């Protein structure tokens, strides 16, 4: 991986793969939505949720992002980094922070970073553009004090919820974003391919996980970086709890394992996938349970087309398909088994969230992990064990395109 010509973010955290033009594209997209919705200023109220912060500024963990219709935009640094707050609206005093001492580099000329300010000063900043109508992203997160300060300074100001429009615009990945996502997929694939060398009878899952995490970081992941195996125990006995066997227990022949990656890579874009492993030839019952998980997953993926079904509709159809196979799809409120990812492993589109009824679009990223159940009728008819395959796809006009290139099949180790 060759990133010559690119700069490091925060000295050594990651490489900045996005150009100033890309950040300007995003700001311009928000401004276009603002024009359509007739708002003068966009206020991102919890930009760390769904990573609007990183998307607009290249930095994680901002309290607010303010995008006026014209002129300078502002990223307000996180309260948790400067818990006491600062009253200076002109600049960011990085000496107040114990971590970030060097100024945040601007992603483009249009964006400026400021210290966390009291609500009154934030309201002053917003009011300086004299907006008549403010577009809110994630309005549920509005602090009462900020609301009071804005409405006191801007008599008669109106608010409009522009969350869905901005989320859907953000969900469509640009060429630069797709390139960055592919870097994350490449990193995870490299490590995955080395797993048969790392997983050995007599070794432990803890040892494997140490290597996985080490290499995820070495190859460019920073921050949210989940990667690891679970040893679910012998393939024909019910799995031991959610996390599987003690990771320090030695791996035995007959054990089955699940390995999942969910991490960012160079460029800070997330990718995720997960596969099953078995030490020795799989039993028919175990192989069948993985096969059902793969079939259910693949069926859902076959429905992912732009301008066709919504995530909610795909979920209904997938459930029916699974039932026809004689199995059950997990029913749990909040199990959003299809969702997008970006600078974090969760963003819109998402099942069981506000975008689930919106038809899909081209160039969105969708992570898919429907859960089916394996049963053990000969042991206890009440036992139901989760089984799933995870993978992430780029939705194209031709349908879902796998970016990591690792088959969904069970990996048999000897």
């Amino acid at each position, binding site marked *: 991986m060759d990133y010559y010509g690119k*700069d490091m973010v925060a000295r050594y955290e990651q490489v900045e793969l996005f150009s100033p033009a890309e950040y300007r594209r995003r700001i311009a997209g928000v401004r276009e939505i603002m024009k359509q919705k007739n708002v003068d200023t966009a206020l991102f109220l919890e930009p760390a949720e769904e990573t609007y912060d990183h998307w607009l500024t290249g930095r994680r963990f901002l309290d607010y992002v303010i995008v006026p219709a014209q002129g300078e935009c502002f990223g307000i640094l996180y309260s948790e980094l400067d*818990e006491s707050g600062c009253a200076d609206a002109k600049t960011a005093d990085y*000496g107040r922070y114990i*971590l970030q001492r*060097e100024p945040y580099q601007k992603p483009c000329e249009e964006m400026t970073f400021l210290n966390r300010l009291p609500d009154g000063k934030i309201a002053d900043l917003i009011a300086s553009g004299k907006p008549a109508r403010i577009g809110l992203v994630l309005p549920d997160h509005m602090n*009462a004090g900020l609301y009071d300060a804005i409405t006191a300074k801007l008599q008669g100001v109106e608010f409009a919820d522009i969350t869905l429009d901005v989320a859907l615009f953000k969900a469509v990945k640009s060429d630069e974003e797709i390139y960055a996502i592919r870097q994350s997929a490449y990193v995870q694939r490299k490590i995955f391919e080395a797993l048969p060398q790392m997983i050995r009878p007599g070794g432990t899952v803890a040892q494997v996980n140490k290597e996985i995490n080490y290499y995820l970081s070495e190859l460019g992941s920073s921050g949210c970086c989940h990667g690891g195996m679970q040893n679910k125990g012998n393939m024909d006995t019910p799995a031991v709890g959610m996390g599987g066997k003690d990771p320090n227990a030695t791996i035995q022949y007959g054990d089955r394992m699940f390995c999942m990656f969910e991490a960012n890579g160079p460029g800070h874009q997330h990718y995720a996938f997960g596969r099953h492993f078995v030490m020795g030839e799989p039993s028919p019952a175990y192989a069948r349970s993985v096969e059902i998980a793969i079939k259910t997953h693949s069926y859902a993926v076959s429905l992912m087309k732009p301008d066709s079904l919504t995530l909610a509709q795909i979920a209904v159809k997938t459930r029916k398909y699974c039932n026809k196979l004689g199995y059950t799809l997990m029913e749990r409120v909040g199990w*959003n088994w299809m969702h997008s990812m970006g600078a974090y492993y969760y963003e819109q589109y998402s099942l069981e969230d506000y975008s689930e009824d919106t038809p899909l679009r081209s160039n969105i990223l969708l992570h898919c992990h429907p859960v089916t159940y394996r049963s053990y009728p000969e042991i206890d008819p009440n036992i139901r064990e989760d089984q799933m395959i995870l993978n992430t796809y780029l939705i194209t006009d031709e349908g879902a395109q796998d970016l990591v290139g690792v088959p969904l099949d069970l990996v048999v180790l000897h």
Partner: protein
Amino acid sequence: MFEKYNEQIRSDRHSALSGLLAEQGLRHVVILQPGLENLDLWLLGQEGLPTPAPFNRNSAYIFGVDGAITKLCQTTTHPTDRAQFPHFEDTDLSAVFDGAPVGIVNPAYLKKNVRDHLAKAYPAFRFVDVTGAFYQCKAVKSPAEIEALRTAAAEYDRLFTAMPLLLRPERLEKEAVNEIRQRMMWQGAESETPGFHTMVQLTSAPDGGPSAQEPLPWPGRRLQTGDRVNVSVRGYFSNGCAAALGRSFVLGPVSAQTGKDWETAVFAQEMAASMAKPGATLREIHSTVNACLAQQGYQPLNSAWIHGVGTSAYEAPRNVDATADAPLKAGMVLAIGPEVRRSGADALSCLDVFVVTENGAERLSKTAPDLRQL
């Protein structure tokens, strides 16, 4: 998720908080934005790592003098969290908002939707801001808390024994930082969020010179023989406590100037620690140390170099805000690491965690305050 608690620490904290409420004539307090100073860990007496941001920002806790804790959320949570964090609207709080005043911590983070709901459901509700008093109370650690912080400090001592191994010429700074974080993971500290778990500041430069201006081109700077490497690590250990440790290393012979600067850094730290007695303020300590450094030709201190440590790696009191004027008390735990800088050079900082005692601050970490020649 498996959750572990320290019952003694929880009991100590609840006692202190109940005492505060009694002083203020309150029966309940609402604690908002537990991301600040990791108030959720503090209140629950939880032995664990901080919740990764932003997941804890919109949680809220109601503590009653009877010790009952109610966990709520101020916003429509994400799909997988709804069962864990009921919204204010979905919870009967009539026993809390019964007309008596209710304390509130971090009122700036009260969401409009919650305020609107409270006004409608409990028209007589009234908050009393106890934020300042709460953080003062939190800043004083019980003996059990101090022992837990000592344990976390010892983990950082352990980490630093690996520095001579991992700081090698030809390694990238990025590789050294990754290894520091990985080693902390092996010791039981995760690093999901760079700012909130194991925070590493590492800069290298030829000894005597300043580090390169950022941004650095990919892949970043490679350590060289003759470099001076500053390493400060702040973060969390799995017992619910924060810690901090910082030292400098030279990959070769130490220049006379660097040796002198380091001695000054250690002297400045010791001066600050000796002044950190009950009744003193961080503002006084900051001024005195600054004056001493200025006399010797060093640049003024302009950073958050002395501050509280507890469930947060950066908590009250701090020298950069109004809590700089709050008198110190025995049992407060401080990170002290004045940054000694000559004009045109990088700062050197000997950073350790101390507990305030009647006779000055006592160091909790055991790593010798030496400049190491590797």
